């Protein structure tokens, strides 16, 4: 076995002990790495019904199979725990150099459990693990603490994953930062904080050896070159911020808490505007040939000095969605989110929910600690963002996430609480993207565009985005499985258009890397297996059909203006699409997984625990 080390590091923070778990090639081949491996580790190490912020929740990291090689954008890592936002599977991905170091330190992944008696950080030097007092670093930003620790440890080679104040204060959507990239969604930073773990510093001294270096180098060069072509032109030129004008033009840009879908200031917060006025540089993750991250710097005015690598999702969430129409405060807000260590998407959406509550009089100025939390008030947004991280005043409510905050406030605010299963919505108003709407509703981690990928079906016009029919389940499943394969390998989704023939090409690269023979069919099967494994985790946690739904606003309020005017998703349409999706998945009408399905997918070991016995259709009981 090459590339893989076949070893998982288990860390018990309560007792500050470690142990090593060995993995067989057969096992690795079924989950690959990243989200697949992390989810399997989560399933095996977290007891059903545990408190996401308690010691039993396992925080699992897993390397990409290609970590530390020349395969472009193959050096990401997956993290999974039971999400404190959703209570379901909380799988997340991050780029940059951490995965390379984890691999080079000799590990395919880590499982962190327990709760330290006092704040610690971990120093991992190959197989030597030290538990170090983190008291001096408490309160430090998630990004700045990484440089501080590198300085302290005296070696630039350490790669650090860290939480900021938001993770320390158990903000439910806290993130884990590494090199300015985040394990952003579903609140893994809060789980890390609940373990009283401030940071993990890793330094590996081993080379990554692969089965066929020459073959892999040739395949890499080919990918590096194709990834400079039309398949990635969007990401290389403007990056994801180019979505702002695109989404605005087709009437799906979430504006003022998803009430409208076009924004009058879209031009001044666009990727085009960013490039012309603030952009300084494109930056890439480890071994990435695309470099999508567009760094913008504010050079003068009130936010002088603010700088950040801006992506579409934070930009919509803290921009149009909060009614903020210029880039400098948005750059400031996203920079703050990263440093405070929280998911800018969830933060933006929970703030926009509070703004709508304020405008409707459901939250008073007094409730908001004297802030005028109206749409477009950038000063209030900045202050409230800070308060969330420290759980001060109104921030304490918002730190719970949109679902819990709206349940607590009630007064009808649930109607416009924009989340699925507790995870805040991404930057697409799905009222006129009906296939994608269903994709979000069935999402195992809640409202996530990256897991579903069904927005492509609607936006590229594969289906009519304004209607629903029962011919879409298979395409939804295929897209979800495909996204999942990329998340397990890990390959960045932005590389997805760069292969001649994805299955065989990638299976071959995997075999050249690991020496484990993998066919295209086996590769494609991983996507379905891991999607089912995530669902199985949720079922074990008590998932029911009623959890697969959308915010009332999506189901009841027609889009008021713009190109998508009048559109919304009726309950009948949603039910139709979901039924169609379950059917395409081979699940029951209630969305449960038949025993035989799990066995067929090679998940026989969990079939008894979560599978249901079904009678084949057409046969009497």
């Amino acid at each position: 076995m090459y590339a893989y080390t076949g070893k998982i590091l288990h860390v018990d923070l309560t007792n500050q002990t470690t142990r090593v778990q060995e993995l067989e090639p057969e096992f690795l081949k079924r989950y690959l790495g990243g989200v697949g491996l992390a989810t399997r580790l989560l399933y095996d190490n977290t007891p059903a019904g545990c408190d996401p912020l308690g010691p039993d929740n396992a925080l699992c990291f897993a390397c990409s199979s290609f970590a530390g090689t020349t395969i472009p954008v193959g050096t990401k890592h997956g993290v999974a725990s039971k999400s404190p936002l959703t209570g379901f599977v909380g799988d997340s991905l991050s780029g940059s150099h951490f995965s390379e170091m984890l691999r080079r330190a000799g590990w395919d992944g880590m499982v962190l459990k327990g709760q330290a008696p006092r704040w610690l950080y971990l120093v991992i030097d190959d197989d030597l693990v030290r538990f170090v007092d983190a008291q001096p670093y408490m309160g430090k930003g998630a990004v700045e603490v990484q440089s501080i620790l590198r300085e302290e440890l005296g070696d630039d080679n350490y790669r650090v994953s860290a939480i900021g104040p938001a993770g320390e204060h158990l903000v439910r959507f806290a993130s884990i930062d590494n090199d300015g990239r985040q394990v952003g969604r579903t609140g893994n930073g809060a789980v890390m904080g609940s373990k009283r773990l401030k940071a993990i510093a890793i330094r590996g001294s081993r080379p990554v050896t692969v089965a066929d270096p020459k073959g892999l180098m040739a395949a890499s060069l080919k990918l590096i070159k194709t990834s400079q072509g039309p398949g990635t032109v969007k990401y290389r030129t403007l990056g994801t911020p180019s979505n702002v004008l695109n989404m605005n033009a087709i009437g799906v840009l979430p504006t003022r808490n998803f009430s409208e879908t076009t924004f009058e200031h879209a031009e001044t917060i666009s990727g085009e505007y960013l490039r012309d006025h603030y952009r300084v540089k494109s930056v890439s993750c480890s071994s990435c040939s695309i470099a999508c991250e567009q760094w913008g710097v504010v050079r003068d005015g009130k936010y002088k000095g603010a700088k950040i690598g801006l992506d579409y999702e934070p930009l919509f969430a803290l921009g149009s969605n909060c009614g903020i129409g210029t880039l400098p405060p948005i750059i400031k807000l996203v920079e703050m989110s990263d440093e405070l260590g929280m998911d800018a998407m969830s933060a933006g959406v929970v703030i926009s929910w509070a703004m709508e509550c304020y405008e409707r009089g459901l939250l008073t100025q007094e409730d908001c600690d004297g802030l005028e939390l109206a749409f477009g008030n950038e000063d209030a947004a900045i202050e409230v963002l800070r308060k969330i991280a420290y759980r001060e005043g109104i921030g304490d409510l918002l730190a719970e996430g949109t679902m819990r905050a709206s349940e607590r406030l009630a007064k009808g605010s649930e109607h416009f609480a924009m989340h699925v299963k507790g995870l805040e919505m991404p930057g697409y108003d799905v009222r006129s993207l009906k296939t994608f709407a269903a994709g979000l509703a069935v999402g195992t981690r809640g409202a996530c565009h990256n897991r579903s990928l069904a927005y492509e079906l609607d936006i590229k016009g594969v289906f009519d985005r304004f209607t629903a029919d029962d011919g879409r389940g298979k395409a939804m499943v295929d897209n979800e499985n495909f996204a999942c394969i990329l998340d397990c390998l890990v390959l960045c989704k932005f590389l997805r258009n760069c292969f001649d023939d994805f299955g065989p090409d990638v299976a071959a690269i995997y075999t050249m890397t690991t020496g484990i023979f993998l066919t295209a069919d086996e590769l494609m099967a991983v996507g379905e297996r891991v999607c089912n494994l995530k669902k199985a985790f949720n079922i074990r946690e008590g998932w029911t059909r009623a959890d697969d739904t959308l915010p009332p606003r999506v189901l009841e309020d027609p889009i008021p203006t713009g190109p998508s005017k009048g559109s919304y998703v009726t309950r009948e349409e949603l039910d139709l699409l979901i039924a169609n999706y379950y059917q395409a998945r081979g699940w029951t009408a209630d969305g449960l997984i038949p025993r035989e399905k799990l066995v067929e997918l090679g998940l026989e070991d969990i079939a008894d625990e979560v599978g249901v016995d079904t009678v084949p259709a057409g046969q009497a009981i």
Partner: protein
Amino acid sequence: MKLKVEFLGLARELAGDAEAVVTVDDRATWHDLISALADAYPSFVGPIVLPDRSNLTAAYMLNVGGRAIVRDLDVPVQPGQRLLLMFAEAGG
């Protein structure tokens, strides 16, 4: 007829403008419009328009009214619609 086309993303950068008015034959098809754009903006050829001008590259699409995507290039263009030349890729 004269058609106004709005440019987003790379098209805007290459054209140096946010929109353009192109003149095409009254019976022009989408295909003719794409050729006219390539004539007006030779830098589109490659990243946005295929070198043989037969179609847009996979990276780009023509959107009508913010609602429909042009799929059949042999259909005549109807005047008076909002035309957008934009990235097809919607990943965020």
